[in-house]
């Protein structure tokens, strides 16, 4: 039986049934693959490629923005440093100016105070002179009275003393 089968069977020759089913299988595979099964896979692969490309571009854009921002910050920092220097310089000049003004005002106040003190001193001296004059008159009278041992009346002596003091006063000026 087996020998009969092997004699009638040629392993190289194709058989009709196998050809039909293999061609049918391959045709189904190509049609279904091309129409339905392949597109979603290809779409996902394209989507991924697109996503990677976008991410790379976004990263490059972010890098460029960061560099621009850094340059801007450095520029601002340099500006701020110059501004700070200018403010310090201005403050120094203002302080110099204020110092000059305060010293000048101090001098003026000292001068004014000195003049006031001198005026007060002069007034006080006048008052003291007047008091001294009255005191001296009393003392002179007392002294004269004691010297003359009441020989003269006060009313007679006063004009003489006044005259004397007037002369003395005129002489002191």
């Amino acid at each position, binding site marked *: 039986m087996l020998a009969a089968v092997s004699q009638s069977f040629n392993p190289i020759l*194709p058989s009709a*049934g196998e050809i039909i089913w*293999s061609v049918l*299988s*391959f045709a*189904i*595979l190509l049609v279904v*693959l091309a129409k339905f099964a392949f597109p*979603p*896979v290809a779409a996902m692969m394209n989507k991924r490629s697109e996503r990677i490309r976008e991410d790379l571009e976004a990263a490059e854009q972010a890098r460029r923005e960061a560099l621009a921002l850094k340059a801007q910050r450095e520029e601002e920092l340099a500006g701020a440093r110059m501004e700070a220097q200018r403010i310090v310089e201005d403050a120094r000049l203002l302080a110099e100016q204020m110092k000059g003004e305060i010293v000048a005002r101090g001098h003026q106040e000292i001068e004014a105070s000195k003049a006031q003190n001198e005026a007060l001193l002069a007034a006080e001296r006048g008052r003291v002179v007047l008091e001294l004059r009255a005191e001296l008159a009393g003392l002179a009278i007392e002294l004269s009275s004691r010297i003359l041992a009441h020989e003269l009346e006060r009313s007679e002596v006063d004009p003489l003393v006044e005259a004397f003091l007037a002369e003395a006063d005129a002489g002191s000026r």
Partner: protein
Amino acid sequence: MEGSSLILAGINFPPIAEVLNWKPLAFGGTAYAFNKIGLLALLSTAITLGLFAIAGRRASLVPRGVQNLVESSVDFITNTVVLDVIGQAGLAWVPWLTGLFFFILFNNLFEVIPFIQMPATARTSVTIPLALIVYVTFIVVGVRSQGARKYFKSALVPEGVPVALLLLLVPIELLSTFIVRPFALAVRLFGNMLAGHLLLVTFAVISEALFVKSIALVVLPLPAAMLVALTGYEIFVAALQAFIFTILTAVYIGEALGGGH
């Protein structure tokens, strides 16, 4: 002496029909009889479509598992086969060539799958139609993309060759491009897979005979180890032959598109 004859008696090589000629499972006695080969061809179609369906349905931006496998294969076909051989013009052929690759690959791999152990491509019933489909495809592509006259001229008449030599070269080109190509495609795949299948059968039969005749169990590990090694080698051959068939198809289509010579 007696032992060796015992072993030889134990080796019962099946007739070639028993390992290649499958009984009809359905439609027996008709021209479209459906047997194991037809079932395997349908199975390889189903597996390929199933893998793509899973990869497409569970598609995520970061591929894993089946999606990774399918996308890697598509990527391989796109870069190694299409872009390297045909160029940008061949990108439309990626689904076609991917289908061809998977169809042949699974039909080859059935050779080493337990309980199947039969490559459908070890039958010319599978390889000749595939080669003819490729043959018709590249001729149609050539005629459509270049025009019949220009295509056949570019295919048959090499440029810059003295007229006298054309007498020799045109028949050679005709033979190599339009006669040998489909024949070589079909026979290469069929021959490799049939040889592999018979090798595996041979070593399986020897191992079995040694196992049954327990007197020679000492030498059993040798053919058994060879069987294991050959199984691994056949997996490699299955992938290699699928790749060769696919890349040659791409070469022919590329030439037909006008990129040849």
